């Protein structure tokens, strides 16, 4: 059971943070279809950053000294770097959609095409193959294990501690914290209200002295930062610390989660847990032991793994079909703001 919870969280957390990225962008009035591309870019930059510092030797010292705190700090730094990369990459979208009043769907698609192309081009030149991998078993160095927290290897932890303290990543908790802080920012502060107003009625916001262009830039940049960070977290926790110009449709799934969650952080959190569960079943159905009796019944009922793999997408489609009537998108999303239409 604790395996199931841990695995679900691993998939749910990137979804959650990237769906929040979508909320920030769409609430400010820009459709961010480029989430997938930004994730790919962020994952690449994060992995590259770790790889470069590994080559510079900074990282081996901390590992050799057993300094786990330094390693965790290192991972946080990589998260920040990939967030910055995502924000910078998203400026391409902001520039086209806000300044040049371009079509947001096509602009986002362009970024989705651009990110894997650029990333794969560079990876092939850097690594001579299609995957950029951190040196050694770096992904597991960042994992928090019970021995690091002062327990002995043989100590039996309770269910709670075993689930949330052993074999987990710090990034999971950082993302949850960021999710909570940014949700409060969006709903309980003056800045958040202004941002949301630009996605509902930018003309009215402008008449009250809010700079719509700047607000939309801010929203899209926060969105890019979150998506970039989510991409790195995805690469670290589910792709074993590698970047290969692909996040398996996670960015699009996050968009679906956002619509399913009705552009509201609390619902989105719930929706991403649900989808995380499905993704988790798809990825590791053969090793899920629900009640701990050593029977892996999902593997034993003999359904093709392909079925589990297509399940998240099929359910997304069905769920959207049933909830679409009650969904309410920000009113002005997708419409470029033109001062002269005030």
């Amino acid at each position, binding site marked *: 059971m604790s395996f199931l919870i841990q695995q679900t969280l691993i998939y749910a957390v990137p979804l959650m943070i990237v769906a929040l990225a979508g909320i920030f962008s769409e609430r400010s009035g820009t*459709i961010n*279809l480029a989430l997938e591309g930004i994730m790919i870019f962020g994952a690449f930059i994060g992995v590259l950053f770790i790889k470069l510092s590994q080559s510079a030797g900074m990282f081996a010292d901390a590992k050799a000294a057993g300094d786990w705190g330094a390693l965790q700090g290192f991972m946080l730094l990589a998260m920040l770097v990939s967030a910055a990369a995502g924000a910078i990459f998203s400026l*391409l979208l902001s520039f*086209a*959609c806000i300044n*040049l*009043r*371009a*079509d*947001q*769907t*096509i*602009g986002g*698609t*362009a*970024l989705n*095409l*651009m990110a*894997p*192309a*650029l990333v*794969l*081009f*560079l990876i*092939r*030149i850097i690594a001579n193959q299609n995957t950029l991998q951190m040196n050694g078993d770096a992904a597991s160095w960042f994992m928090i294990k019970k021995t690091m927290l002062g327990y002995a290897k043989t100590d039996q932890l309770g269910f709670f501690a075993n689930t949330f303290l052993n074999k987990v990543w710090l990034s999971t908790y950082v993302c949850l914290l960021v999710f909570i802080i940014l949700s409060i920012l969006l709903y309980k502060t003056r800045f958040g209200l202004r941002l949301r107003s630009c996605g509902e009625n930018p003309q009215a916001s402008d008449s009250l002295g809010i700079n719509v262009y700047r607000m939309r830039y801010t929203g899209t940049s926060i969105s890019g930062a979150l998506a970039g960070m989510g991409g790195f977290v995805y690469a670290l926790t589910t792709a074993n610390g590698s970047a290969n110009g*692909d996040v*398996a*449709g996670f960015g*699009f799934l996050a*968009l*679906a989660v956002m*619509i399913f969650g009705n552009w509201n952080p609390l619902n989105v959190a719930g929706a991403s847990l649900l989808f995380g569960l499905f993704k988790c079943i798809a990825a590791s159905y053969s090793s899920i032991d629900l009640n701990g009796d050593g029977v892996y019944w999902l593997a034993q009922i003999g359904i*093709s793994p*392909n*079925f589990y*793999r*297509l399940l998240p*997408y*099929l359910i*997304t*489609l069905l769920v*959207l*079909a049933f909830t*679409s*009537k009650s969904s309410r*998108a920000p009113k002005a*999303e*997708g*419409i*470029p703001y*033109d001062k002269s*239409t005030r």
Partner: protein
Amino acid sequence: MKQKSDFWKRDTTRSVLASLISIVIGMVVGGIVILIVGMTNKSLTIGSALEGIRLVIGGIFCTGRDAAGSLTFGFSPVNLGNMLFRAIPLILTGLSVAIAFKTGLFNIGAPGQYLMGTAATLFIALSIPTAAVPAWIVWILAFLGGMAAGAVWGAIPGAVKAFLNINEVLACIMTNWIAANLVTWAFDASSLKNVAEYGKTGYVYKTTFNGVATPKLGLDKLFPGSQVNAGILIALLFAVLIYILMSKTTLGYELKACGANRHAARYAGIRDKRNIVLSMAIAGALAGTAGSLYYLSGNTEFFWSTYQSLPAVGFNGIPVALLAVNNPIAVIFTGIFMSALDVAGQQLTSLTAYNEYITSVIIAVIVYLSAFSLVIKMWISGGRKPRHGKAAKEDAAVESASELGSSAVTPPVPDPADETPPAEAAPEKGGEE
């Protein structure tokens, strides 16, 4: 002087120019990326970067390296034939995206429709024994089967868009991944996996295994050594048919009316929901045909374990359609241009330290630029006469249409001049190569 300003004012001229500018900027960005990589990477030299840039521009005419190791250029029937062969799916997916755009829909589901078309075609072509049924009948059945499978797969997002008002972009993306998994599942369970050839894993038999292949019609004499076949003629025929459908028939008019303003169309008595489903079904059929023709050639193999990645050909239909401003005839030329770029990418991989992904970067830049092609068009005309009425009016019309559209993401793609005769598009090709 007056005549000249008329020439610049014409929508066709501006569209062609905007596309050309996009292509040139895309090429320049690609060149800059190569140059930066060549200068910063220690194992690469400036000379190799310059070679890379030359290949990106003229890869289609590259014939390899001579004894001294420098690139040689000239007429290459193999490259040109392969270019025509690879243009088949690109033209068809381009048409698929273009017809959906005209109805105000963004068909990002072409990869899924392409996969379903491929799967249906391969299953029919390989399971009907040619000993019992003549091969040409099997070919026709497989072709039609692929088309039908694509149409069904395209109609799904169309139907959920029309009846449940789900954003078609999301529905298309989900159906893409469902198709990828379904196709993998179907071939995984089938007996069509290539086990006859030693060392092949994950491939389906070529259709020639069952004696089914598209006829060459003498094109192999024209381009000896290449993969070209009669499929290119079918693709050209489809482009002309779609052109006739969209600009000469009532159905085409209704589809375009739905694209311009769905609510106004309904007010005028046009069945908007039926038209949205129909448009997506036609788009799906075209993408399915693309997969069908590509794998019916008999010398292409399908890697069936596709659940982790979607075919790039489907996505590349988007730039093909955008560059052609959704004009079916122009799609022929932009499709051929894209496949020329594709061949150049292959040359880049085999002849230099760079790789084919640079051409994807160029394509992405082109898509990015076509997102604001309206602005580029305004620059073209505005540079000569500051913001004259037509451009501004068009701009406003597009915006109000997208405001009225029920979907938040109705792509406000400018409606191109529908009456573009083929001759108008011809200079475009001349500039591309």
